[in-house]
């Protein structure tokens, strides 16, 4: 069966970290951007016709993903397309997923042979075998499959779409933007559905001024008994990122072996844009402990429980603890950092001291000198 993929790049909700980038192009895990996971999941399932829906600040996204070459999606037929807003669209800008799909109808309708659609968000990270999800969708005979994860809801974390199942795995409740109790499943914002059915739903909903995928299509139609929903419960690691604090904890979670190996190894490789950096150099007196380190760094100082992106420099005598340090940032001699997220190209002056807390990490924005 031919499968089409749609990735939602999502607007940023992480303050300074996403003023100039989408959630999809948010750097993650030393050498990745969040969108790499969605793209690699689709690529591993053999999906070669993918649209990326984006509406704001997509320069960094286009720069990163390019023609899709790294994911084997730079094809003559199908391949990768950017579904950016049209200046002359019927609406000003997309209000919801259904509206964005409506204005990308040409993309959806192209390629009659695509029977099935996988919709996936860039802001939930996982290494998931989508072939298994698609097989489950077909076997269920339901209208739409929603991939969910247990253990995310905790009564205080607000989740886009949640649902509760009974012992027979039937859905007994569903809610949108809800601080669901711990026994609810959180949607990973991955859906599988038939293309024909999706096109019909998009047209019907837009015609009735309904545009919200979770609220109007999934929850609304399910409540009215008009559609059937197949919940797929994903057993692996899934990282949900909506806030700076969640981003911080999800990034540092990679220090944990099970999280790291699940996210990068069990199913398929995660591809990203190649930067051709040299291997990282560990100096004579460096002390690096419990760290994730990308290529191209020069490490002369001390770092503990931190994630160091490509080409980071930690000078002698600097001490870094519980930090996330993005590409090309330099931590000067004798500087002391704890619980800090440093965006790209930051310079920390020698002797500077920045101390955040795990629940309130300090964020230094791109290019700043502190």
């Amino acid at each position: 069966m031919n499968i089409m993929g749609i990735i939602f790049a999502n607007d940023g909700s992480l303050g300074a970290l996403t003023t100039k980038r989408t959630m999809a192009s948010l750097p993650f895990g030393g050498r990745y951007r969040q969108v790499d996971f969605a793209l690699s999941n689709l690529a591993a399932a053999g999906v070669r016709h993918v649209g990326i829906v984006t509406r704001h600040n997509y320069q960094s996204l286009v720069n990163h993903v390019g023609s899709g070459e790294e994911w084997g999606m730079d094809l003559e037929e199908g391949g990768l397309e950017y579904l950016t807003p049209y200046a002359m669209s019927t609406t000003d800008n997309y209000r919801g997923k259904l509206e964005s799909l409506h204005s990308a109808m040409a993309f959806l309708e192209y390629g009659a042979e695509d029977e099935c659609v996988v919709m996936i968000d860039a802001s939930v990270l996982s290494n998931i075998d989508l072939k298994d999800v698609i097989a489950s969708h077909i076997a269920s005979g339901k209208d739409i499959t929603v991939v969910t994860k247990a253990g995310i809801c905790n009564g205080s974390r607000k989740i886009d779409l949640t649902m509760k199942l009974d012992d027979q795995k039937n859905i007994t409740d569903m809610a949108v933007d809800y601080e669901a109790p711990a026994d609810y499943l959180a949607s990973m914002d991955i859906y599988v559905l038939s293309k024909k059915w999706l096109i019909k739903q998009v047209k019907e909903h837009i015609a009735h001024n309904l545009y919200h995928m979770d609220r109007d299509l999934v929850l609304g139609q399910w409540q009215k008994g008009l559609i059937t929903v197949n919940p797929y419960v994903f057993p692996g690691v899934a990282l949900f990122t909506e806030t700076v604090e969640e981003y911080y904890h999800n990034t540092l979670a990679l220090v944990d072996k099970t999280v790291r190996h699940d996210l990068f190894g069990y199913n398929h490789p995660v591809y990203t844009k190649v930067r051709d950096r040299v291997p990282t150099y560990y100096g004579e007196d460096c002390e690096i402990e419990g760290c994730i380190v990308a290529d191209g760094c020069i490490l002369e100082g001390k770092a503990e429980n931190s994630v160091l992106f490509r080409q980071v420099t930690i000078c002698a005598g600097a001490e870094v603890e519980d930090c996330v340090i993005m590409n090309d940032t330099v931590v000067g001699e004798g500087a002391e950092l704890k619980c800090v997220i440093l965006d790209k190209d930051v310079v920390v002056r020698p002797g500077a001291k920045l101390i955040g807390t795990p629940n309130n990490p300090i964020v230094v924005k791109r290019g700043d000198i502190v």
Partner: protein
Amino acid sequence: MYFQKKRCIAMLLAGGQGSRLKVLTQKTAKPAVPFGGKYRIIDFPLSNCVNSGIDTVGILTQYQPLELNEYIGNGQPWGLNKTHSCAQVLPPYERHDKKSGWYKGTANAIYQNIDFIERFDPDYVVILSGDHIYKMDYAAMVEYHEKHNASCTIAVREVPLKEASRFGILNTNPDGTIYEFEEKPKKPKSTNASMGIYVFNWNVLRDALIADEDDETSANDFGKNIIPNLLNSGHKMMAYTFDGYWKDVGTIDSLWEANMELLGKDPEFNIRGDERRKIYARNNALPSSYIDDHAKTINSFIAEGSEVYGTVRHSVISVGCTVGEGALVEDSVVMPGVVIEPGAIVRHAILGENSRVCRNTVVGGSFEPEEKKQISVTSKGSVVEAGIVLLPGEML
């Protein structure tokens, strides 16, 4: 089909066995041998080409080509897969005349691919080999060649007198013209060694190759035949002096040394260059490396995809390796995908790709600074079983 005329193309001789690398080239051609954590030897000449504006490279392969061919692929990692660029692998092939067969020598390899070169109607052809680690701007050498109106220009470098008899030695006039070429002379008259990098006017080289092929006594070799013949027939030949880092990595010892020369705060060879002159390599979709709480990483290169739980000192750890808890790796080159199990000790060794050193085993030994270091080597995919000791200089 339309071929754009090129001012200059490169031909890269990558067919040699590299027998002095012993077990490391049993199943791999020398240019495909891993180097520096994430590179292979061939990345250096290929990246030099790209960084010198040469976008058409013919790569002559013969010995154990599978991995090398896979690695080169369509030339994408070096940006050589565009409409008017190529990295074309050129194996020996069968011909209608009796001249087919294996590449008999370096000159014969180019001779058999005259048709490939003719497609681009080049003014100059650069001849390179796939056994050296260096960064060089070939464009500057071609400029020099053109400025001096030479038929052939040979890159040279100063070598210590005691080593000169291992090289082709060029004796030059003060203006840089070459008046004599001696292949591996017993009593060298100068210390100008040929680096095996040549720029030729294509029309001169083509005629020389055809003449050489007709000479049945010829060894069909650039150093032994083509260069001396051109010199004897009165062609203007220039020596181009290169004084940057350059290392022949044709032996176990020199390969080990070259890797060690990447280390230190101010290394002898700094692979890091400016943004536009990087050394490119085929990428291995592996995550960032992980350095554990109990790990010690001292004066070392550690590439992505590695997990270090033990101690690494003065070593190169390549992509996708694991150094287990309590293990010690010292003064060693660990090639891609190697697993060093907990408690193992590895000193002065080169561990071949995907080899495994089992728990509590010992590979190699320590040496006094002035002592000759004997490097222990494991071959690709080999396993140093538990309880085994691989002595200094031993190979598995």
